[in-house]
């Protein structure tokens, strides 16, 4: 029983007509989710800029409001006031649709993210698949933007985007299958409920692969090739300005939030935690994941495109397959009461596999004879 179901029942008891009985709760939920997501995304932006500043021994924005908390709002106002420039040779319709198409899937994913046991818009029984399906849509929108801009830098970014998506979707899905097997459900709520021990302990390797894969999916360092500012200027949003750029910007942080939330749900036991209210636990975990992403961004350089591909196909895909097989065997053999055995085995296995693969693995490519 989610909160929305209860709301529906409540309306039913009031004797509302059928259309209102369905649409009013749904709309209310959507409005709440959108507002919450936008607020959190704005806080993310602030957090990223402040923390990145501190990593780089500077202060970060601190002028607007206490500790600069209103800086994203000031940025938003600035962006809204900017001129909207469309390149002369751009495919105007696609150029217009692309930013919207980036942002909508991000919001759609939040339909199945459980902020709390009951605070979920709809508890789909195929929630995990829904997330994977919807979140890859925004890559398509990125390619739309890249193509429509009629800019060579954008085009390169678009091609990189497609290649990156195709490569990294596989290990991500594979590691997600491991989680689904262990929870024996695809529903996000059930997956959280199955985690009496967080799955990060039971499947460290799967978690690592999912984390790295999602870094690539959300274009974060060290896989931020789509907007590698030192190489291809701003990548797919080179030719965007004003509100359209703002949508890309929001979409980028939205995706970061999505994946942080999904990692929290799948591996960090979601809303579960002692003492504090569940929603707070959820948000704390999301922030921790996001901070880790930030920390990597503050330190690491970026990979080259062929190295990125090699990393996905030669390193992460085999590892995720091994992880899947090992998890499957363990589920069959290890009784539920002996979970600590699984933890020990899995951590040992992860360490051995990573060391082994580190030795065997070579970052692909190199010079091409032309």
């Amino acid at each position, binding site marked *: 029983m989610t909160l929305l179901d209860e709301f529906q029942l409540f309306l039913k008891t009031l004797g509302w007509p059928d259309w209102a009985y369905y649409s009013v709760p749904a709309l209310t939920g959507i409005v709440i989710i959108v507002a919450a997501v936008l607020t959190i995304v704005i806080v993310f932006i602030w957090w990223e800029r402040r923390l990145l500043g501190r990593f780089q*021994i*500077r202060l970060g924005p601190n002028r607007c409001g206490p500790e600069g908390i209103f800086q994203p709002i000031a940025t938003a106002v600035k962006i809204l006031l900017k001129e909207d420039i469309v390149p002369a040779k751009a495919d105007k319709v696609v150029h217009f649709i692309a930013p919207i198409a980036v942002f909508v899937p991000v919001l759609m994913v939040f339909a199945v993210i459980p902020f709390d046991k009951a605070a979920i818009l709809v508890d789909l029984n195929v929630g995990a698949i829904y997330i994977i399906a919807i979140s890859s849509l925004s890559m398509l929108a990125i390619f739309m933007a890249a193509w429509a801009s009629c800019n060579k830098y954008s085009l390169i970014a678009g091609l990189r985007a497609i290649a990156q998506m195709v490569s990294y979707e596989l290990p991500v899905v594979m590691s997600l299958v491991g989680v689904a097997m262990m929870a024996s459900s695809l529903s996000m709520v059930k997956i959280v409920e199955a985690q009496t021990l967080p799955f990060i302990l039971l499947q460290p390797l799967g978690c690592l692969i999912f984390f790295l894969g999602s870094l690539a999916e959300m274009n974060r360092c060290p896989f931020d090739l789509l907007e590698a500012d030192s190489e291809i200027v701003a990548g797919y949003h080179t030719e965007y300005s004003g509100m359209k750029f703002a949508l890309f910007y929001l979409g980028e942080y939205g995706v970061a939030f999505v994946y942080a939330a999904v990692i929290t749900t799948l591996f960090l036991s979601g809303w579960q935690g002692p003492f504090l209210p569940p929603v707070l636990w959820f948000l704390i975990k999301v922030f921790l994941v996001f901070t880790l992403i930030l920390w990597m961004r*503050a*330190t690491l350089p970026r990979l080259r495109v062929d190295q990125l591909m090699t990393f996905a196909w030669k390193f992460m895909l085999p590892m995720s397959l091994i992880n899947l097989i090992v998890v499957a065997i363990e589920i069959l053999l290890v009784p539920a009461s002996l979970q600590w055995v699984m933890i020990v085995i899995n951590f040992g296995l992860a360490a051995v596999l990573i060391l082994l693969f*580190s030795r065997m693995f070579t970052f692909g490519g190199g010079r091409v004879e032309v």
Partner: protein
Amino acid sequence: MKFEHYGLGIAKGMALTFEHLFRKPITVQYPEEKLHTSKRIRGNELVWFPDKCTGCGTCTKACPQGNILLVTHRSEPNRFIVDKFECDTGRCIFCGLCVESCPYNALAMGLKYECAKYRRGDFILNKEKLTASENHRPSAYFRPQFDADLPAQSLLLYDREEGGQKLKFLPLSTRKRGPGA
């Protein structure tokens, strides 16, 4: 290319950035906090001492940009009266060669460094604007006689994180527009 160090290289770097979280930021928040500039700063606007100037024109000859305009007329047999002394600080490159060349210590570099103006014409400074005054103080560049009056430079080297010598800030009361530093 392999993972030569089993990912330890990445871990080391991440540890260093994490350590930097706890160091004090080096940012100086400019309009509120102003560091004392060097005593020898070649700041904005020349400072001219009309009583010392003989109108010899060495400074105009020394200027690589040909930026100083000096018009004089002869009053007594060996004396020039300066009619016009103008400097276009918009084209000035602040090399200090004019100050260096002045044989009578009649010219010094200014202490100001905030030089934004609304019009290009405002950059051309005439005699009155160049004359030394309370608001228009000379720096010690090539004029060591002013050295003692100026505050010591605040060096980033003696920074906050070591707790040694503190950065010297201008008191907030002098934050009004006016003489720099």
